[in-house]
């Protein structure tokens, strides 16, 4: 399988060509978790994850809520 390299939370990450954002989230076991995602600093709402095909050098950010003041 051909892979492409994206940036995931600041580190490089290989994904299969043609994979979607939804595929990536699933591969990380994060489906159904309370996370938010942005690509290239644009928020991608969860209903759009299936349609968004990952492209080389996409900068993907996946965030959660943690303790803070």
């Amino acid at each position, binding site marked *: 399988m051909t892979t492409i390299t994206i940036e995931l939370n*600041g580190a490089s990450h290989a994904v299969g060509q043609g994979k979607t954002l939804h595929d990536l989230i699933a591969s990380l076991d994060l489906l159904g978790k309370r996370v*938010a995602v*942005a690509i290239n*600093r644009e*928020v991608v709402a969860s209903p759009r994850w299936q349609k968004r095909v990952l492209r080389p050098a996409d900068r993907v*950010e996946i965030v*959660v*809520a943690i303790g*803070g*003041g």
Partner: protein
Amino acid sequence: MNLNDTPTEGPDADAAGAASAGLTIAGKTYASRLLVGTGKYRDFDETRAAVDASGTEIVTVTIRRVNIGQHANEPSLLDAVPPSQFTILPNTGGCYNAKEAVYTLQLARELLDGHPLCKLEVLGDEKTLFPNMPETLKAAGALVKDGFDVMVYCSDDPIQARILEDIGCVAVMPLASLIGSGMGILNPWNLSLIIEQARVPVIVDAGVGTASDAAIAMELGCDGVLMNTAIAGAREPIRMARAMRLAVAAGREAYLAGRIPRRFAASPSSPMAGRIA
């Protein structure tokens, strides 16, 4: 204001009525005037126990990258303090410019199903964690325009507070002293100036060290107090959370009751008339 050292008339009747009804932020009314952070606790059980003991209805959280490869079934903060039970106030802790802060809150809004309430804090430097006000104003403007209900951490400068209000922030949150310092209410006079003019809730954010600090903030006429380290860093956080709940309530009651003036003269509490011999 009790700082004037005159018997206060207390807040006017309308304000008092609204006060006893609770704290209203962006159209929602809360019985508790204490807002608490969720940082620095030992674990989520302790976080939840402290939140419960504080009686708060609004808890702050921060937004961070997921640890990739971390066990996905680890407990999460929002399981311990679920949005179904609390108003979650995402902050921009760690942001040093407007761009980072706006981006962080856009992610937070997505994370919280479109919930627009947020706490904006744009920090100036790591030594003081003082707000960078030019960047704060820039971010506040962008967020309000984008439909956020912005509660804003700011300097205790009445002019900055007024500008933030004019921009459309739903609460102004001046620091009482440096974040996490526990130094208490260092400039009650500035806070009073802000409170006097404000048309939105004024919430002391940062600096509270112990219960008396929270009570002083409320006696000045603040609408609420936001704290994290004072509770989480106490030797017994859950007991301190309870102390803060009582202090905020006591301070509010004292504010509404109207304190006696300070004067450097004694005044007997017992009548002089009818003394024996």
